[in-house]
């Protein structure tokens, strides 16, 4: 609640609207206590006095009634009717929406067709018809406006309910023995309440206008009762010789409705979870770079062997700045990749492996992401220093990405062939026809049967495996030197995964592309990677050739992580859990980040930063006492 008020107060316009509305409401509340003239007392001798005349600050109307007094009493009436009508509409409309959305099927059909019929009438005509049947009067105008606005609530709330009624927690509540009514009231209502409040806050202003409109037409407040709309209607006839009689109530309506709408928009922005998470703030085209001084823990990790590196990442730091907190997602990562090598980047969720991959081409969303240090050397230049124009020439060209979920990375409304053509023509001067031909060729290359026909299909017409093949074809489009594959098979079934892994392997052999393969699955790593880097809490804790690292992990974390994984065909190997959780990225401990969970911890593990040291052969480990080879009796220390 406090957070909500704070958010609201930060929105200046909403705060202004809120203060204005508060003042108006207060004024309306204390009206009976104010030393005002009787609003309905006529005095024909004193008619049409201009504002600031004696005894009448705002002048008098055609019957000599005090306009200030009528305005305040009218404000009271308009506010009361508007709010009451909104509440009635919200109550009935939300109930209809909840019931229709929750029960679905025939109930939904019947209720919503009724609502549709209500909406098919022009609203003012409907209100007029209702007033005509019930007779003019303020209460009847209130009913009319409430009824007219029911569809608005019913539709909004139904939409929100439908999206919640199929969530798993509703099934869970049913299995907990809750009946439908109880589920509606205790499970669903709290979740759609923000929607109801948002709808309410954006309709109150509109309702007040409609009430004023009906009164203006003489169907709402009946003389002599004052109401902003009827005052406006009466003043209209004297707009030439006494403009203030109509202008003042008009101004009052304007101020009232504006204040409500400004506040309503603020309420909506503060309550809408999508807006809260910053969906409206447009991310920059590349991650912000703001190099800070970091204590460098590791020396530059040179490529083992003689070949020069294709990619050399040196002490990369990426932070997320949320409010006053800085989350250090990538905390000094260095690695290098040879031409035609496949390096696996392995870690659990939150270890920083994906952020590392996205940082290389400045693809971390900014805000909140900031690259706060390091270098990414690729073909003799530092990718982090490139401007957005140069970076765009690298993205999807020399360096290409394959993402986890091809359904969300392919555009749903563009045929896959056209998406490939776009990828090709962004970087190559090809005619449309040549590009089409190349696109079909690429689809064939990733072993999509009948590529010509598939090219003219939309992503939803392809299976998950096929879509991932398209994703790979797109990455291959411009013959990249480096493919960054971020969990490319995690969303796929195991038989499809086998095919995609085989395909990646074959393509790498045929094209000589380097691959940075990000995954959490040691089985997959073991199939495709030459070397593996294990990440924990934003750092690489161990690097080495895949089979050696898997057989004899040197870092305690690596070993325990491997032992967590159940092994197929070895049911007696009971997965050993690692107690505890990784440290929070905004409160990393000094020293080894794994120390709290490690059963071999010593005091010196927590004293100062621990560097990645060469252990044996091409292997490196960030541990002061690396493990020795596994023996049949268990591992001994080095």
């Amino acid at each position, binding site marked *: 609640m406090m957070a909500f008020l704070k958010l609201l107060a930060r929105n200046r316009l909403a705060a202004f609207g809120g203060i204005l509305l508060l003042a108006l409401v207060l004024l309306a509340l204390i009206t009976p206590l104010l030393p005002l003239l009787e609003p309905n007392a006529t005095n024909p001798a004193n008619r049409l006095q201009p504002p600031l005349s004696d005894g009448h600050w705002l002048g008098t109307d055609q019957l000599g009634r005090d306009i200030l007094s009528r305005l305040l009493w009218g404000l009271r009436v308009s506010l009361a009717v508007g709010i009451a009508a909104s509440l009635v509409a919200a109550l009935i409309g939300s109930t209809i929406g909840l019931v229709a959305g929750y029960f679905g099927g025939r109930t939904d059909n019947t209720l919503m067709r009724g609502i549709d019929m209500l909406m098919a009438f022009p609203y003012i005509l409907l209100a007029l018809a209702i007033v005509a049947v019930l007779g003019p009067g303020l209460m009847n105008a209130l009913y009319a406006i409430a009824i007219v606005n029911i569809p608005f609530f019913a539709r909004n709330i139904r939409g929100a309910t439908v999206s919640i009624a199929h969530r*798993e*927690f509703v*099934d*869970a*509540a*049913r*299995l*907990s*023995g*809750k009946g439908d009514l109880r589920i509606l009231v*205790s*499970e669903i209502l*709290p*979740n759609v309440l923000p929607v109801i409040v948002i709808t309410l806050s954006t309709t109150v202003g509109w309702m007040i206008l409609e009430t004023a409109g009906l009164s203006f037409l003489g169907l709402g407040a009946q003389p002599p009762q004052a109401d902003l709309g009827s005052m406006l209607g009466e003043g209209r006839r004297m707009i030439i010789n006494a403009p203030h009689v109509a202008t003042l109530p008009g101004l009052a309506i304007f101020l009232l409705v504006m204040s409500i709408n400004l506040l309503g928009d603020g309420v909506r922005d503060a309550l809408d979870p999508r807006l809260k998470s910053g969906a409206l703030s447009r991310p920059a085209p590349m991650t912000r770079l703001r190099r800070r001084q970091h204590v460098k823990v590791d020396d530059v990790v040179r490529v083992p062997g003689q070949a020069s590196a294709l990619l050399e990442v040196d002490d990369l730091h990426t932070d997320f700045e949320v409010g006053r907190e800085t989350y250090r997602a990538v905390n000094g990562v260095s690695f290098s990749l040879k031409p035609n090598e496949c390096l696996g980047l392995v870690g*659990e969720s939150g270890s920083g492996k994906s952020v590392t991959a996205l940082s290389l081409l400045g693809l971390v969303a900014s805000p909140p992401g900031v690259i706060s240090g390091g270098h990414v050397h690729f073909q003799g230049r530092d990718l982090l220093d490139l401007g957005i124009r140069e970076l765009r020439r690298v993205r999807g060209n020399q360096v290409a990405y394959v993402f986890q979920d091809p359904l969300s990375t392919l555009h749903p409304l563009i045929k896959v062939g056209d998406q490939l053509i776009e990828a090709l023509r962004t970087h190559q001067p090809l005619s449309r026809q040549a590009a089409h031909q190349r696109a079909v060729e690429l689809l064939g290359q990733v*072993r999509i*049967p009948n590529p010509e026909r598939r090219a003219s299909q939309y992503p939803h017409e392809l*299976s998950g*495996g*096929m879509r991932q093949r398209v994703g790979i074809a797109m990455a291959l489009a411009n013959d990249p030197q480096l493919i960054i594959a971020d969990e490319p098979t995690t969303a796929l*079934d*195991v*038989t*499809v*995964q*086998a*095919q995609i892994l*085989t395909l990646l392997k074959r393509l790498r052999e045929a094209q000589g592309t380097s691959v940075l393969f990000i995954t*959490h*699955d040691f*089985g*997959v*790593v*073991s*199939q495709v990677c030459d070397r593996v880097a294990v990440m924990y809490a934003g750092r690489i804790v161990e690097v080495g050739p895949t089979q050696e690292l*898997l*057989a004899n992990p040197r870092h305690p974390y690596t070993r325990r*992580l*491997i*032992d*967590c*994984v*159940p*092994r*197929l*065909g*070895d*049911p*007696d*190997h*009971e*997965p*050993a*859990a*690692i*107690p505890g*959780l990784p440290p929070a990225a905004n409160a990393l401990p000094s020293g080894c980040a794994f120390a709290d969970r490690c059963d071999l911890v010593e005091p010196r593990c927590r004293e100062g930063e621990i560097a990645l040291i060469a252990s044996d052969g091409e292997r490196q480990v960030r541990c002061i006492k690396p493990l020795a080879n*596994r*023996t049949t009796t*268990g591992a001994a220390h080095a």
Partner: protein
Amino acid sequence: MPEPLLDITGLTRTFGGGRSLLGIPKPGVHAVQRVDLQVARGETLGIVGESGCGKSTLARMLVGLDTPSGGEIRFAGEDLQAMRRLDRHALSRRIQYVFQDPLSSLNPRMRIRDILAAPLKHLRGLSGRALDARIAELLEVVNLRPEFVSRYPHEFSGGQAQRIGIARALAAEPDVLVLDEPVSALDVSVQAQVLKLLRRLKAEFDLTYLFISHDLSVVETISQRIAVMYFGRVVEEAPARRLFSQPAHPYTRLLLSSAPVPGGPPITAESTAAELPDPLDPPPGCAFAPRCPKARDACRQAPPPLEALSGGGHRAACLYPERGAWQASASTTATPGAS
């Protein structure tokens, strides 16, 4: 075999279908087709299959979230549907469900206390101090701190949230837990913690598990018997060890050889793109025949029945089952001394 606790016979679920107003049959999707399974008390039956094989639909029918189109489920001899008609809570007191996504199965606007209190109040009729005591007990059982009761779900990690989901299922004091991919959304280190907890709870409360997963290695570590599903049918069923050492159905063999094992042998992949048959227009014969290297004409005539093979409790729905041991296994891998 003594009388099974759960006896599923001919269970079928068709979505859509029926006839239109003019009497023209509408196409229906056969999510689950004539499944026969028995689960003994105290057993863990693993159900393995890829997406679209009907394993989740099967699970939802067992707990009453979905109603079968045909066949029956008997719980200790009683018909489940009849039981539900008499008392809508009767089923939930005997069979409970653990969801795949721990966070989306907890209402974001309810405190843990209210989430755990619901089954205790509605299914077990607890209130007042007994209710509070039981909530504290449940949290302790799943290794969560008692002060968590006043927190909201978003304050928990995935592993903790899944423990709450398990505690909620246990609150009903069920005999059977249907676990639908309970560890798939978790990191491996947390996955191991939850598996360990599930093992302990089973012994402690004398539970019977139906453990559904797409992950063969997870199912293997926890199950005594495993049923493999493909396209709505059980294609093979066997004691866990036997299934992994001597898989008979070509699909089971394909699954096993596709699964990458750390330090294991290279996986083999099918050469042609693997596509499931069109669920609106299933082939008349074995659904796996289009992908099967050994398929013959007879396979395409009618779906092969699930028949017993030699050797205890091994059944396979294949006309030409594979025989003999499956060659690739972790015993040949390069990770020694891990037991």
